[in-house]
């Protein structure tokens, strides 16, 4: 926290606030992962997929619906959705009313294959039709045109829904298998989001999403905002003598101030989410439910013997944690105002978040938030720090020395080095994280 303020003073408030906002988002994601790992000992390397689904929710909620596209192919797409539902019910029906046998397995496989073929036949022409509607700007179905804030909830539901399916499939696996399986499933999710252009525009990205906060350009013309900026900087403005200079300085300040103001609005919104989640998770941690989760984590067999439904609770906490990650994903897209499926990479959205969880302290919600802040701060500021260190150590070399030039060119990659070293050191000397789990018995 203090470090962020330092950045604010030395670099600029704008940078500091954008780091702060990303820290808040990271903290939310970390809390989601922490609920799964710290409370229940479930390892989920699929965070990226849930975050992307949250982002998808933001697009589907807030983008303006594209009427031509709906006319061109909406009906067929809805038909396909309906077909998928029919398929699922058919499979459920078979599972319920036939005994387990080879015949049943083949039957289910036949239903799935036939279903996929039918869906492809119905959807292909309409997908082409949708994608050919004004492909440069739309070319997708668009969303509902609702305020983007709704997407935070919808994103949670999307992610929770995916987690339900994944949990049903994969939760029976041993820990490191679960890690691999979730990682791979999240890659599948990203592949679908990236390549189903009719839904998400794929790698063409969706830009210019609605904002819950005012736009900078509008702010700069508002009377009350200019007055506010003038009031804040009255001391500085009074020093300037001539009126024209004063006006120019004020304009400059208004432009700067507007972007700071917008970021502050975001910070406020995100802070509300973080605090609300913190209260809820803290309450949950000390509730009978939290005690049960810890019991299950520490000794599954014993908890099972005491009549706790381990499978059900695991599924529940898997869904809850993933839903929180989904909220974070929607928040991220809300802040950026754009959705870029190509940018979802496991390094950034899965492993980095895990570093935050481990460094901060698993099982401790404050630890999760601290981890989110500290690691994200390092992630951003790693390049300047590395640059400083390189200059320090190669001070003896001439500026044209090839080694020095090479090192300075590869400055962005020192952040990986720092993350890795940090993780290894923490794992070695503080395996429980900076703020270890502490359970007070009240």
């Amino acid at each position, binding site marked *: 926290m203090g470090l962020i303020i330092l950045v604010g003073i030395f670099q600029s408030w704008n940078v500091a606030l954008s780091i702060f906002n990303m820290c808040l988002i990271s903290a939310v994601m970390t809390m989601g992962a922490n609920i799964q790992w710290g409370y229940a000992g479930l390892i989920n390397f699929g965070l990226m997929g849930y975050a992307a689904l949250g982002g998808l929710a933001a697009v589907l909620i807030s983008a303006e619906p594209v009427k031509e596209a709906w006319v061109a192919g909406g009906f067929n797409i809805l038909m396909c959705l309906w077909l998928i539902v029919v398929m699922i019910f058919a499979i459920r029906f078979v599972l319920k009313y036939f005994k387990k046998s080879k015949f049943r397995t083949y039957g289910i496989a036949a239903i799935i294959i036939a279903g996929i073929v039918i869906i492809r036949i119905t959807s292909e022409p309409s997908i082409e039709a949708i994608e050919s509607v004004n492909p440069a700007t739309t070319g997708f179905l668009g969303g509902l045109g609702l305020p983007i804030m709704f997407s935070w909830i919808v994103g949670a539901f999307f992610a929770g829904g995916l987690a339900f399916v994944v949990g049903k499939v994969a939760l029976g696996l041993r820990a490191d298998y679960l890690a*691999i399986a979730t990682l791979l499933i999240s890659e599948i999710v990203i592949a679908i989001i990236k390549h189903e252009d009719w839904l998400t525009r794929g790698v063409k990205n969706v830009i210019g999403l609605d904002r819950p906060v005012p736009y900078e350009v509008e702010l700069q013309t508002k009377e009350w905002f200019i007055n506010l900026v003038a009031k804040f900087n009255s001391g500085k403005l009074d020093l300037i003598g001539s009126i024209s200079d004063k006006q120019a300085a004020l304009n400059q300040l208004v432009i700067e101030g507007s972007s700071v103001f917008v970021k502050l609005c975001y910070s406020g919104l995100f802070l509300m989410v973080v605090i609300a989640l913190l209260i809820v998770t803290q309450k949950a941690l000390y509730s009978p439910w939290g005690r049960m989760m810890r019991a299950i984590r520490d000794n599954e067999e014993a908890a099972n013997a005491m009549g706790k439904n381990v499978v059900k609770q695991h599924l529940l906490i898997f869904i809850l944690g993933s839903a929180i990650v989904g909220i974070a994903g929607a928040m991220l897209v809300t802040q950026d105002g754009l959705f870029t499926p190509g940018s979802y990479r496991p390094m950034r959205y899965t*492993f980095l978040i895990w570093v935050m969880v481990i460094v901060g302290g698993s099982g401790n919600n404050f630890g999760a938030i601290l981890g989110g802040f500290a690691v994200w701060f390092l992630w951003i500021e790693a390049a300047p720090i590395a640059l400083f260190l390189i200059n320090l150590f190669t001070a003896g070399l001439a500026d044209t020395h090839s080694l020095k030039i090479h090192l300075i060119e590869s400055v962005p990659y020192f952040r990986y080095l720092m993350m890795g070293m940090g993780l*290894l050191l923490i794992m070695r000397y503080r395996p429980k994280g900076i703020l270890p789990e502490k359970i007070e018995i009240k």
Partner: protein
Amino acid sequence: MDFLNAIILLLNYIFVPALTYGSQLALGAIFVTLIYGILRFANFATGDMMAFGTMVTILITWYFQSKGISLGVLPTALLAIPFAIIFMIGYMLFIDKFVFRYYRVQKSPPVQLAMVSIGVMFVTQAVVRIIIGPSDRRFFDGEKFIIKAGEFKEMTGLNEGLAIKSSQVITIFVTLVLVSILFWFLNKTKTGKSMRAYSDNEDLALLSGIDPKRVVMITWIIAGILATIGGALYGLDKSFKPFTYFNNMLPIFAAAIVGGIGNPFGAFLGGYVIAFSEIFLTYAYKKFFMYVLPESMEPETLVQLLSTDYKFAVSFSILVIVLLYRPNGIFKGKVL
């Protein structure tokens, strides 16, 4: 004639590429499976370790090229690989000594070791990118093709050409040799047998006088060899880019699990299963059917089961299905 054309078409676009890709995956999968079987954790640093080995190979290749040493028609990299292997073994043993050994002595749960391997992944990735940079590099020299498509057409008089790159032949050949040596080592020599015994039951192996330190060291040595060769072959055939290597980790994991993790032979076959299914399912069969079917029945669409964008998704779906129905893999690996 049409039938022959169809077969050549499949050979050229499916069989040869899939066999090459499968060999590259197989080496990685054996690497994963050995670490899993003997050291008992999922090594998330696999892809980056392979990238590291490839990077060393490239650096040595450049050195040789600057000195004017080459192998004539064969790529210079083949000459560089043995030196890279030596370096890589040193790297593996270094990592083991300073990172993994502590957790092994502590008998940490596998998940913790997997987390540690993520730390190693970050560091290795950083080192690779700092030293050689993230860009795409080709280091293949020597004769590029063994049979060119045009020459093949002239030779046989068929419509379809068959092109075989020398890198493909080298890959398949080296993989087969390496894997046979490895299986001979694991099944026939005393050290290999002690490694298998250690993998089956650690305590029993200790009781029978097997030195765990030696077993672990040999595992890392083999891992170093596999990582360097697997990575270098992939780089020779396609190109070297750190990010693709990181991504390759995922199909490699899929191959290891599909084949039954902890079972080297399963991993070997798993690599081919993954490679063939990826290419089979994403190939557009239009041309094939044009040769095989009479003209009236020719398909109008591409007859592609899935678009190539879903290449990775295919292998992961196979993995999910295998995990659901046969959690031990196709060829019985460790019991979960």
